[in-house]
């Protein structure tokens, strides 16, 4: 829930898929799901290295 994370003050937020599976999607094929996860984590690593100014919310491409 990105809005919760933002409300309590997290500065680097990457939007996951769902509460019940933030880094996956059970409806996808295994490889597709892994690719989705790869994109979310890649976005997380990217924003980690950024000099963000204030709260930043990013979505996986």
């Amino acid at each position, binding site marked *: *829930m990105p809005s919760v*994370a933002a*409300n*309590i*003050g997290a*500065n*680097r937020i990457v939007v*996951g898929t769902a*509460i*019940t*599976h*933030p*880094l*996956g999607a*059970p409806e996808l094929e295994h490889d597709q*799901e*892994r690719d989705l*996860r*790869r994109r*979310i*984590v*890649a976005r*997380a*690593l990217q924003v*980690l*290295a950024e*000099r*963000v*100014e*204030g709260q*930043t919310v990013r979505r996986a491409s």
Partner: protein
Amino acid sequence: MNLAMTGTIRVVSYLNQFFAGFGGEEAASTSPHVLEGAVGSAKLLDQLLGGRGHVVATVVAGDNHMAERPGAVESVVGLIREQQPDLVVVGPAFQAGRYGVASARICASLQDAGVPSVTGLHLENPGVDMDRSKVYAVPTDAIAAGMRDAMERMVGLGLRLATGSEIGTAAEEGFIPRGIRQNVFSERNAAERAVELLVRKIRGEPFETEIPLPEYHRINPSYLASPLEELTLAIVTEAGVVPKGNPDRLESARSRRWLTYPHDDLDELSSDSHETIHGGFDNAPICADPNRAIPLDVLREFERDGVFGRLYEKYYVTTGMTMAIADAERIGREIAADLLGRQIQAAILTST
């Protein structure tokens, strides 16, 4: 038995060096000690009790001693409890910062021990924010000119606390709100109250919410000290992911602790090796594939590809479900301190 009627209420007063008559800054290092009966401003307290109770002892300590010496609060509380008080009247501290903080901490500690206590603080005293939920503090003037008024309020509330009276809301009893949500019965149901308030809002009339919006602290973003390719990264999660069988019995809700588990021999998590015991949502998808909460599989890929330096050998876990905010803040501080102690420069937190 109503203690107030029998006049047997044993009251202990806590004062700093100044209000006990020991002096100002030159006496601020006075160590805690007990004086028999009412001393200094406790004499006014004894008088205002008017026979409903008596000040049996005055405990005194210096402001600097309380602010600087570890364990000072515990030793003051120990001295107070030796007097077996029915009520402890602490201060009032007015706007004095060190005195106010010490007073609030003493009251909170007494509350934990089940000893009724009351203090008096100016609304801007930093003590107001100390252990707020455990402290009954009446609002006072900024300066000691308001002594009699403050004492009268403290005596009124204190006697009610000491006699086990049912304590009403902050507004009814006249203490500084402790930030506690207390259930009360209204004359009208919530739907009727909602409609009335809504109409006020629509008409541009003043209205007052029943639930003030919470305020959280803002923290400025920190930056990586070294390039991504060189840093050690840790995984932290509140998703309740544990080795299969939950060997340490991590709670599925209301957890007060965090754990670490090694994953350095794994390329990914699997339903054979790990599960989640999180009780706050339908956790079947994560149990079926724990990489959906801890993305170890793709982090290993990025690690191998040199996108970042190295994944720390263990992951950190707790269960973020109906966790008390105080516990959550403490767990956050403890995990951050542990990470820093291990020279880990960055963490990915996954959240359900």
